[in-house]
């Protein structure tokens, strides 16, 4: 049988891979994808807990609603983020984070 550990471990693994991608990659679009991956990994945790913590014989739908919200917000985030990237690319002609250092204090 697959118990909660399995799901949590898969979720953690996905999160770790996403994190590694954020750290290692320099293409800002790929970094963005990795962030999405990390969000989805968190979703997996939520859904798993929802299923494993039943309330009155049903899955805990609070968790699933939260996943729904996260996906919605993530969609908005992607839209805005990509728009920013496009604007950034227009101004700088690059998507390499090593060239985007104007925030240096």
């Amino acid at each position: 049988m697959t118990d909660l550990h399995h799901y949590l471990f898969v979720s953690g693994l996905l999160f770790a891979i996403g994190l590694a991608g954020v750290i290692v990659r320099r293409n800002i679009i790929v970094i963005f994808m990795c962030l999405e991956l990390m969000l989805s990994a968190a979703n997996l945790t939520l859904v798993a807990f929802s299923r494993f913590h039943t309330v009155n014989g049903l899955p805990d739908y609070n968790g699933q609603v939260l996943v729904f919200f996260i996906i919605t917000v993530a969609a908005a985030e992607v839209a805005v983020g990509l728009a920013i990237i496009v604007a950034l690319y227009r101004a700088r002609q690059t998507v390499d984070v090593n060239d985007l250092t104007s925030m240096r204090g």
Partner: protein
Amino acid sequence: MHPALFYIFAILAVAGAVALVCFRNPVSSAMAMVASFVGLAALFVGLNAFFVGVIQILVYAGAIMVLFLFIIMLLDLRVEQKAHYRGPIVAAGVLLPALFLIQLLGVLQNMPAEDPEPLALREASRQFYNPDIESPSEQSVIYQSLSDRKDPSLPDVHLVGNTLFMRYNFPLQVVGVLLLVATVGVVALSKKAAPGTAKPPQ
């Protein structure tokens, strides 16, 4: 969910993720991400969260994916130069997630392994019974599905909707506003600056 299916889809998701990070071409990365998300959606379905699984496919693999690809094409992005990878950063990129996994394993170690409780649909149906209505056929869809004598089934979408609109109605409206704001923001951001007011790139 059968353990075999679980392992198949889990491996699909993890492999997609690894590919996402490792491919140097952004288009390949995007494709890998789709694979990973499909695997995840399957895991959701395996957890009786059908609605979320469908949403995952529709929103991520459908809409968001297309957006990414579209932007990648629009910007005509090249393959990243490998020479630019710096040793310490790659090391940190391996080490820190590894540490994280070790921590996770440490936590899981101390957690009792538990099997999922079986869903008790018929029992659950009681809380959706409306005593004011006599005829069972006029009871709510949720009640009818849960209490069906022959084949009680989980009315997943109805239950999510019930929670969403009854309990989280206000946050839902807020999220709606958020989407609107995001839409306006995206339009504003991607609008080309009118000639004359554009600031020179720094």
